[in-house]
């Protein structure tokens, strides 16, 4: 039996319209502009790409911005958004995440593009049926039928890790 961790990478940019995404988008941009000044001490640059090309520690912006979205992650109550089982229900839980700056520019929010990766709690991979994984939560009673989720493979969801 294999145990897997799924990773859903949610990309948010200026075209994303929903309320949660917009708050994450705006607050991460505000924090980007604050933290940018930590690195660009001589006011030489405008974009994250420029910092990456010119400063060895620019990647730490990903971490430094991440607390700006923690409040919104809490509001999800450990449920991974968007990804649903074949019944159309959210079913993956998370505690681990990663914030990722894709592009950003201190001159305009419209260039801001980010991704939030959600790492699921470990799931048992029981079987594969067509394009679907048959998954079960861990820790279920052994003398009862195991409750399962049929989960269609889809873009932006990866099997992040696998344990035999």
């Amino acid at each position, binding site marked *: 039996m294999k145990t897997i961790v799924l*990773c859903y990478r949610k990309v948010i940019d200026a075209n994303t319209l929903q309320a949660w995404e917009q708050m994450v988008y705006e607050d991460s941009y505000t924090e980007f502009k604050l933290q940018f000044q*930590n690195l660009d001490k001589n006011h030489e640059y405008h974009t994250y790409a420029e910092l990456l090309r010119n400063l060895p520690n620019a990647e730490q912006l990903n971490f430094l911005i991440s*607390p700006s979205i923690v409040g919104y992650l809490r509001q999800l109550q450990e449920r991974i958004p968007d990804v649903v089982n074949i*019944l159309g229900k959210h079913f993956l839980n998370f505690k*681990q*995440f990663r914030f990722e700056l894709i592009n950003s520019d201190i001159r305009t929010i419209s260039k801001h593009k980010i991704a939030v990766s959600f790492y699921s709690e470990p799931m048992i991979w029981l079987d594969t049926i067509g394009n679907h994984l048959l998954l079960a939560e861990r820790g279920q009673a052994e003398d009862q039928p195991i409750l399962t989720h049929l989960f269609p493979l889809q873009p932006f969801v990866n099997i992040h890790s696998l344990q035999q």
Partner: protein
Amino acid sequence: MERKNFLRSLMVGVISTPVLWEACKKDTDTTAVSTETVSNSGSGTSASTCVVSPTETEGPFPTKSPSAYVRSDITDGRTGYKMKAKLTIANVNNNCAALAGAIVDVWHCDAEGNYSEYGGSGMQSTNYQSVHFLRGRQTTDANGLVTFTSIFPGWYTGRATHVHVHVYNASGTSLKVTQIAFPEGSGTAVAIVNGYAKGLSGYTYNANDNVFSDDTAKLEIATVTGSIAAGFDLSIKINVPG
């Protein structure tokens, strides 16, 4: 914008339908069929990913949430001797009067000398509950004061004990990036804490520190009182061009 245009084009379609209907009814041989092809197919993404859409009751509804940096107690369960830090921010462009409404970020390492941050490779995830220990943000009051509750910082190779500070004005423009140094010598907090479990062997003192060694006026050194039992109190005044 694209969506708006798309909706408008639908409405035009609805309005013009009766006209077309009329045209069809007349059915004259002179009716020309338009050969204009669609140049804008719309921007829906439904066809590109073949997955089930969520079908659940809406909610919970998101609410505006301040950055997790904004807190006075930045300990986050890190073990160490308690330290209360009082920073007073003054404006050198206003006779060093208190600067109210300034945003003050502080961060420092834990007892072992480690900072909170993602470690290692780009694949690494982190628990959202404990991601940013020993980092915090406060806004100065009318007296220019911010207060943080934390632990006495540890140390790491190459640096004297220090706390990082970044002061912004109320609109987020950087006014000063600096570091707070600690008094040294017998009877000081640095000597009493004695580097926690590490001791002070190989410690870099302020005079040899690449940040503090040029601070001959000792402007960056805080006043630190207290004891391990009662906790330490750090205070410093930081002048910024407000």
